[in-house]
C-alpha cells in the first residue's frame, strides 16, 4: 500500500514539474520578464535562464515519472524550489510587486505567501521521495 502511495506521490510531483516546465517553455519571453521583475538577474542571463529552467523542470520531472535517476532529480528539483522560494522571499522583503511566474501565465499567483506555502509542500514531498528511494535502496542492499 505504501509503495503505491510512494509511486503516486513521485508521479504526481513529476507531472506538476513537467506541467510547470511546458507552460514556461511555451512562452520563454514572458518567463524572462517574470525573472527580470525579481531584479536579481537581468539582461542576457535572465533570458538564458528563461530558456534553460523550463527544460530542466521537464527533464527532471520526467525522470521522477519514469523512475530513472529519481534521487538526483529530486535533489535538483529541491534545490530549484529552494532558489525560487528564496527569490520570492527576497521580492517580498524588498516590497516588489511580482507574480510568482512558477506556472507561467496560466496560474499567475500574486499572493506570495500562498506561493511559498505551495513551495514548502513541494519541497517536503521531494525530500520524502528522496528519502524513500534511499531507504528502498538500503532495504534491497540488506
Amino acid at each position: 500500500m505504501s509503495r503505491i502511495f510512494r509511486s503516486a506521490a513521485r508521479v504526481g510531483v513529476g507531472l506538476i514539474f513537467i506541467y510547470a516546465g511546458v507552460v514556461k517553455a511555451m512562452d520563454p519571453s514572458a518567463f524572462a520578464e517574470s525573472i527580470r521583475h525579481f531584479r536579481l538577474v537581468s539582461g542576457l542571463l535572465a533570458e538564458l535562464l528563461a530558456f534553460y529552467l523550463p527544460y530542466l523542470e521537464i527533464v527532471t520531472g520526467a525522470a521522477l515519472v519514469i523512475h530513472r535517476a529519481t534521487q538526483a532529480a529530486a535533489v535538483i528539483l529541491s534545490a530549484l524550489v529552494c532558489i525560487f522560494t528564496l527569490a520570492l522571499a527576497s521580492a517580498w522583503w524588498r516590497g516588489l510587486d511580482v507574480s510568482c511566474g512558477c506556472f507561467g501565465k496560466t496560474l499567475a499567483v500574486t499572493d506570495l505567501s500562498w506561493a511559498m506555502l505551495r513551495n514548502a509542500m513541494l519541497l517536503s514531498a521531494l525530500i520524502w521521495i528522496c528519502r524513500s528511494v534511499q531507504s528502498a535502496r538500503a532495504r534491497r542492499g540488506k
Partner: protein
Amino acid sequence: MPSWKHFACLLVLPIFPAALAFAVSNPKPVRGAALIETAEPAAVTLWVDARPERKFNEQHIPGALRLTEEEWDVLIEPVLQQWNLGTPVMVYCEPGCGSSAEVAARLRAMGLEPVNVLEGGMAAWAETQR
C-alpha cells in the same frame, strides 16, 4: 547518494532543447550593409535607440526613440504610442553592446512583433549614410 552521472545527465540534457528554442526565438541581427535593401522604409520602421542619453543627443537615427532597461518605466510609454500593429521595430546601440538585444527581448515579451536588432549598431547605420 545519487550518482554524479545522473546529476550531470539531468543538468546537461535540458541545454539542447533550450539552445534550440533560444536559436529559433532570437532572429539573427540585421546587418548594417544589408539594411537598405532588406529593411522596411525608414518611415514605417520604428527605430529604438538603446544607448545612454548622452550618446543619443550626440547622434541618433532620425525619428528614433530612446529606450533603455534602466529607464524602461519612463521611456516605454512614447514607444508604445508610436508603435502600430505590424510596424517593424529596429533596436540599435553601440557596436558590440548588449543593450539592444536586451531591449529587443523585452519588447518581444510585450508582444511587439517583428523586433530586430541592428548588427553593428549606430556605426553600421552611419556607414550606410556615407
